[in-house]
């Protein structure tokens, strides 16, 4: 185990970005409707280990650049085994002369993603995006990024965006066991380049700290200077635990959620996540146009109100 992998307290030296910022508690403003549906070409498609694939798509030049935490809907050309497009987090944005290249880390788990896995270089995919609200990376504080499994990919994208703001991150990465730390080598390489610090945890102790990312967080957090901000992506039970941790410690915490989706654009109302009691009360009182397309006090839509939510916004008892 390398020194870098060990949970290690930070020694300061952080340069929090001097960006005018909304308060951490305020949700980011509604994303402007800028999505498009465009045909993309597969430029790279390879195995990423731990049962995952890495996919790169060349987009037309005019395609709006997604931010970290945003997603797109990938639609296979007919004949496809599935009807609806599949939501996928953007894990990489690379500018190129011909147009941006988008990268995705995904697991072939069902009919749609297995069909995706069969694509060859130069095959076509329809991409709808960028969709949703990404991580509010303007929120001040030492960035603590917490990834579970394939959640690592959008958070690496976030880490790179933070680096451009001159902010280095603490990157916590957990999985069942060493074999499930997907794309670990690449994660380490990219974090090294950015000067981010990688901390690992596995449930069985085969790599990094023996335990969950939450235990890792408990160890590291006391050594980080305030203010801190958490951005997390991974399985819902993990996110629920992190959300509770953030609420308990009054650390602004943002979680990238998932839901089964149809449209991805807010029209079908098919991707509800239960709002927290406090949020429900706040929205029930509101009279002016609400920050949500439909102002539903009971449910937020994952696709347009999220997929990234502040910890206080959702009802973790019903989600964890």
């Amino acid at each position: 185990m390398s020194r870098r992998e060990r949970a290690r307290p930070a020694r300061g030296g952080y340069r929090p970005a001097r960006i005018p910022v909304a308060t951490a508690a305020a949700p980011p403003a509604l994303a402007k409707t800028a999505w498009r549906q465009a045909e993309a070409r597969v430029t790279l498609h390879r195995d990423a280990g731990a049962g995952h694939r890495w996919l790169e798509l060349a987009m037309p030049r005019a395609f709006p650049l997604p931010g970290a935490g945003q997603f797109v809907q990938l639609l296979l050309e007919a004949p496809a085994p599935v009807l609806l497009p599949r939501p996928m987090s953007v894990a990489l944005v690379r500018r190129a002369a011909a147009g941006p290249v988008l990268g995705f880390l995904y697991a072939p788990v069902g009919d749609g993603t297995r069909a995706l896995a069969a694509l060859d270089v130069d095959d076509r995919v329809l991409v709808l995006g960028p969709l949703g609200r990404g991580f509010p990376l303007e929120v001040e504080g030492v960035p603590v990024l917490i990834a579970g499994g394939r959640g690592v990919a959008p958070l690496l994208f976030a880490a790179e965006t933070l680096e451009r703001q001159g902010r280095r991150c603490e990157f916590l990465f957990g999985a069942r066991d060493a074999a499930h730390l997907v794309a670990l080598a690449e994660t380490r390489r990219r974090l090294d380049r950015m000067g981010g610090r990688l901390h690992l945890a596995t449930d069985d102790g085969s790599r990094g700290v023996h335990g969950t990312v939450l235990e890792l967080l408990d160890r590291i957090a006391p050594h980080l200077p305030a203010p801190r901000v958490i951005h997390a992506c991974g399985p819902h039970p993990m996110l629920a635990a992190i959300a509770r941790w953030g609420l308990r410690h009054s650390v602004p915490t943002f979680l990238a959620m998932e839901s089964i989706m149809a449209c991805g654009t807010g029209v079908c109302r098919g991707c509800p996540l239960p709002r927290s009691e406090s949020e429900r009360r706040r929205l029930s009182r509101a009279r002016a146009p609400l920050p949500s397309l439909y102002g539903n006090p009971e449910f937020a839509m994952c696709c347009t109100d999220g997929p990234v939510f502040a910890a206080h916004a959702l009802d973790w008892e019903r989600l964890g």
Partner: protein
Amino acid sequence: MSRTPDLAVRIGPLRLKNPVLTASGTFGYGDEYAHVLDPKGLGAVITKTVTLKPRAGNPPARIAETAGGMLNSIGLENVGLERFRREKLPKLRALSATVVASLGGETPRELARLLEALGGEPGIGGFEINFSCPNVARGGAIYWAHARRLERTLAMLRPLTRAALIAKLSPDVTAIAELARGCEQGGADAVTAVNTFVGMAVDIGGGRSRLGRATGGLSGPAIKPLALARCHEVVRAVSIPVLGSGGIMNGRDALEFIAVGATAVQVGTASFIRPRAAAQVVEEMARLLAERGIRRIEAWRGCLEPAASPAPAAGRRA
């Protein structure tokens, strides 16, 4: 060289530049897709069903994809009458498109109150009454599946607006033709056939429904042949225009519905897959007609062999 065919149709007092509408609940309140598809180019935009009070909708999961289709259990989530009037209607008017507002109620009285409030609002060319939601406990498809109830309700609504009044029916009934006739006798200008079909999907891992409720409404290509047959049945039963809905994904599908006598069609689930789907249906339909040398959509309507459509007046009125 073929000319662009004349696609204009009439639904009661409403003249549409073409017979393609967006289906309720699949195009939001009209402005969400406006940056990729100019709604002015469509026959009309039908908005998400609005009810007197806002509705939060059903608990998750609300969507389950099935072979060639999708089940939904949205439960009529909508902003309610007040917000619709205050926030959505001004945006709809700003689109300068033809707008049909979809209304939903648990009782005839509720529908009357909605229409009293909206019936005279400028910028609404018609109302589609949703008599067919499969996903609500009260006031859904089962409650409205009585010809007399539909007739009495429409007779009560008719005086409340001069805009087009359209009745949207569920396919999950014993005799859709009777219900359609009830609507016609009550004074409806048109009938929409059909809403989603009640369906189920089970997660065999957990032994549970894949939706939050046991059942949902099935839409998409999977229902097209079923919807087409219901549409055909309704066309033969009434002499008012019929709007076809169910699995229409492209111009060919639309022409099938019009061939059995539908005056217009609605594009639903297709918009989730390709937000420009409704506009593409218009373009394809025009091209296909032009290729066949057909200059007016009216000449295509009801072109199915007369033997298959015996009712002489069926769907022939413009």
